[in-house]
């Protein structure tokens, strides 16, 4: 992956350099037809730059995708921590409900002859 990335980067840099060189020659050329031909050449080079750029964008997007798995895991950890707090809350509430039932039972027992 690193080699493929490096080759693509080298290819990209070569194309960008070629584009710059043709453009530098074009602006110094006085012949209109030659200027047009050079501009078409620049467009062709740019099209190749686009194709390599698309590959580089894919590689960067893959790196992003790999990082996302751990962000998802962090979200799960946060949800677990939150559910522990909620469990404690529901445990206390259950105790309260239980005590209410006991209260009722005691009140009932007091009324018995």
């Amino acid at each position, binding site marked *: 992956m690193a080699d493929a990335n490096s080759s693509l980067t080298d290819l990209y840099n070569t194309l960008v350099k070629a584009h710059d060189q043709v453009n530098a020659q074009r602006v110094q050329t006085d012949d209109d037809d030659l200027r047009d031909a050079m501009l078409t050449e620049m467009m062709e080079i740019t099209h190749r730059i686009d194709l390599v750029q698309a590959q580089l964008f894919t590689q960067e997007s893959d790196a992003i995708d790999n990082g996302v798995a751990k962000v998802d895991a962090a979200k799960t950890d*946060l949800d677990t921590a939150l559910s522990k707090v909620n469990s404690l809350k529901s445990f206390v509430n259950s105790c309260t409900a239980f005590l209410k039932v006991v209260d009722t039972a005691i009140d009932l027992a007091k009324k018995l002859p």
Partner: protein
Amino acid sequence: MSKFIFSARIPVNLCTSLLMLCFAAGCPSIQPARVTQFQQSTDTVHVQAQTTFRAINDLVTEDELDLVVKKKDLTESDVAVMLAPTEIAKWEKAFSAVDSYCKSLAALLDPSLATDLEQSFVGAATELKTLDKNALPDPIISTAFAEVAGMLIEAKAQADALKVASSADPSMQVVFTSMANAIGSNDNKPGLITTVSKHWTNRMGVKDDEFHRNFDDFYKAHPTPSKDEKTTFEAAQRQIVLEYIQLRDQRDAQLLTLTSLRKSLLGLAEAHSALARGSAADLSTVLTKLQTELDGTKALYDQFKALKPGAAKPATKPST
């Protein structure tokens, strides 16, 4: 009884004081409001990335059309989509994951979580008191214990949040810096900024060549032009110069938008790093800086849209 109340209140008050002191005296902590602010900034950057990618694909497609009409054969690679939907979907997934993470972080740090628990404890203590008058020494004590329980939960939530944020931070750095790398920089290195700038060089080259050719053709046809002929010619050339200026402004606005987006992505990485360290001061500074950048990016994008053909054409160059 009063002796018991006195002795029981000391540890409760001490514990409360220590916890409050810790929150106030700069122990690492994450403020829920800052999590929300970070989440909102991420949402804004997400929308800006979407609109930026659309604009880049439109630019490339228009130029591909101009090139392909000169050819004899038409192939799919002549009209390739540079930023493929499958790749953009990975960015969407990443932004969505960060959004969910922020929501969970905000839920864990929600102050009402501790308050609800305090109320549950107070409810339980009240029931216990009803059951047996001697079970708890004093309502003040039971309320104080409930408060401490709430604060302990808050402290535990803070500790959990910091631990998770800290372990997630390396991945957050990978996500945001990879995004910034894909955008690229202004130094002719690989990235969208360089690619886009080459398209604008070509577009401006078309105008530049047209201007050059018109000059040659005019003086070939009129070796000694009259004043009127010269005026008509210069008016035509002026129109080309105006179109050239418009292209320059569009280029500058789009490149500045991309540069600003890159800065915002790096700002998000920096903000999360401060959040994971529990440094409220750093996070506040980074988020303020980030907000300024985001406002600037939005203004630039609006300017870029206004400069597009068919839109109202402002006469001045966008300010940087």
